């Protein structure tokens, strides 16, 4: 099998992350975030997959991920450092894998857009 690690990452365009604006694209992004939030581990439709892939394809350095906590049967949030840099344990604890998946998305979206997707219904 393979884990390519040297191909160029997709870019997350500004229009994708500007969800607070009044245009139709912002409305679309809010709808996508709502769909993801409702079932973070569900099988995404093609539109949602296309929205998520650039975020999943971000370079490792600074990227959020999870760490299993075997004793607690839970997950905590971590941030990758990239090559040669230790992983930083951010913290938090989720006993639901779906909740943990949302936590990763939330941290990542805040990092790329400055906007908390938890407020998607505001």
């Amino acid at each position, binding site marked *: 099998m*393979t*884990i390519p690690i*040297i191909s160029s990452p997709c870019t997350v365009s500004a229009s994708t992350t500007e969800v607070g604006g009044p245009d139709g694209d912002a409305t679309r992004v809010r709808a996508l975030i709502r769909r993801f939030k409702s079932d973070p581990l569900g099988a995404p439709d093609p539109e949602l997959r296309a929205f998520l892939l650039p975020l999943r394809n971000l370079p490792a350095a600074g990227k959020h991920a999870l760490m299993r906590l075997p004793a607690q049967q839970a997950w905590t949030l971590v941030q990758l450092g990239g090559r040669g840099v230790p992983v930083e344990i951010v913290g938090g604890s989720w006993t639901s894998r779906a909740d943990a998946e949302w936590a990763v998305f939330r941290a990542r979206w805040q990092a790329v857009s400055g906007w908390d997707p938890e407020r998607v219904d505001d």
Partner: protein
Amino acid sequence: MTDVVGYLDRWSAAPGERVALHLSSATPGPASVSLVRLGRGVQRDEPDGIVYEPVLAVPAHDVALRPQPVDAGSYARIDGLGVLDLRSASLAVLVQPWLPPTEEQVILASQGADTGAGLRVAIDGDGCYVLHADGALAVNARAAHARHWSLLLLGWSDDAVRLTIIDLRSARSTTLVLPLARALAPMQSLLLAGQAQADGSVGAHFDGRLERLVLWPQAVTPDVARDGLLRQSGLPAGAVACWDFAPQAQESLLPDCGPHGLHGRMFQGPKRALRGARWSGDVFDWRQAPDQYAAAHFHGDDLSDAGWEPDTWIELPADLPSGAYAVRVCRAGADDGGLTGGLCRLPLFVRPAGAPPAQRHEGVVAVVFPTFTYLAYGNDRCALSGHNPEVLADQAITLEPTDVLLSQHPQWGASLYDTHRDGSGVSVASRWRPIPTLQPDQRAWQAGEGSGRWNYPADLLLVEWLEREGIAWHAFTDEDLHVQGSAVLAPYRTVLTGNHPEYATTELVEAYRAYLATGGRLMYLGGNGFYWKIACHPQRVGVIELRRAEDGNRSWAEEPGEYYQAFDGGYGGMWRRNGVAPQSWLGVGYCGQGFRRSVGYVRTAASDQPQVAFVFDGVPSRSFGEQGVIGGACAGVEVDRQDEGLGSEPGGIRLASSLPFDATYFIANEELLVSRPTISGPYSPGLRADMVLQSASGGGAVFCTGSIAWVGGLAAHGGDPAVQRITHNVLRRFLDPAPLEMERADAH
């Protein structure tokens, strides 16, 4: 922190052998050492962990843990230069820097007898060649180009040191000069690709290639050096020593072809059999033109042996049953919140005692654990530093605490999936180092939804199932077959592979094929098997080499013209590209992968033939394998299919195939001739797991499931009853001495 890491001196042992434990803990303190048998008993380290029971015949004992450092980074050392008169001399070498973003990298450092001070040629953090002599520094104004060959000529006399840098592509030449206030101390030794540190380690490693180091006991001109290094072979005229970086029978040797035999030594395994500055482009096999492949690639993160002292030993009883074991090292005083929880479990497979018997072990199955694959993935850092794992996983990456520990220790080396810090691929893996991610309950993102069991921890699901079924079995490893050949398997009517026997040496493949040719029956319960060809080092057991050549799913690609393995001279890369596609002897071969959700199987019409009815005895439904702990079903992760075009036996019976995979699955690139938009699961009918039963040309038989996720169906909780029944049916039938109908047909 009470984190514990370590390694054993062997992964496979016979009863009666003594196993050495090499351990380390950042915080000194006592720990308890014990031996446990995996797959049986009632104890678990996690709620859904592998069961184990203590081996009471091996009393637990205490050991005092201590920190043991790892001095990673390859380099070479040449001693004994004091016999030469080098007051005025010249040293030339061919250099190809790869320029990772690091601080100063030392290419060459001399040491004198008295002060230890001497000459040093390096590349600084800006990528410029620099010359250090007696406390003075000269810096080349122009930065070197990554992966361009240069000739460096270092000359010295009583009053000055000169470094001439000749870029071999542009032929541009620059000379740095440092006047000396006093003569240099007599040169005693040379260190290449590193510099001695105050603590006794070697640091400031050079990342790149070196070729052909020549020493003259007098000043020489750049033209003489060019001629000596690029046009002459052996010892150039007037030179007193010449060191050759080409592959040697003795791994660590850096031979000197000069009259004094001042042979050097290489440390931590730089990569050899590589194109040098003299490569013509019309030769591709290093054995045909050693002079053209006389470069060695040094890396600051090479690690072939951590070199830790053994801390304690375990004596295996002479009557210890064969099986899967682990050495448990547990810090006293319980968990302090460290990443290993104060616990380390080191895998150990115990073979049956004695030489293989002449008569059959009737009713006993041999299980060959794919330890070459475990080693290839050892210290996999792709999830730590790559951005694509999450794309393949289609969900957030979940690390283990041991992955986080690994991120804190770059000096423990990487896997064959990783790249070195200079971007070149990691092509050598050694088990002589801590591999904290090789643990019985380790989880990995590749296993998709569910248990996260991948490679070794997934094979332990098979072990648990064998124990629950009460099936007698003996344990072997890839290394056992590589060394002893098919004689190991001959006493067994049936042999099981693990779920992912991806990496295989020529000797290993020949052992399996010889077993089948003499009537053996093989159950290949996995996927992506026998995909990459590798070589074992001829002297250093436990060190493997891979050339990711030509084709296949690759995390990095071998350099052109460097597809022949240094360890044995064999042509590397895919077995398929070596003319031994797994389809040609197993019936199926790898066709694609996905890492999120597995699917079930559905029977084919061919499965209704009476001679294969035994396979589905007690399985009422035509669909099965729809639940499991690896991706939630039993067909998935990495899958194989039947393909007569690649050699699958025409008489092989495809009993079942997987249902279509979703859009996270993609067909393997070696299956494609042209990039096209129909390579994902929903568009690729050829991307499937095939369950196949076929006879072998010597009278044996092979049963394949075509899926890594199959063993997830064998789990006690969350497994698939039909998959367990099918596995049971085939295993029992294979153990029955009566010929299979298809074997009879083959005999005719």
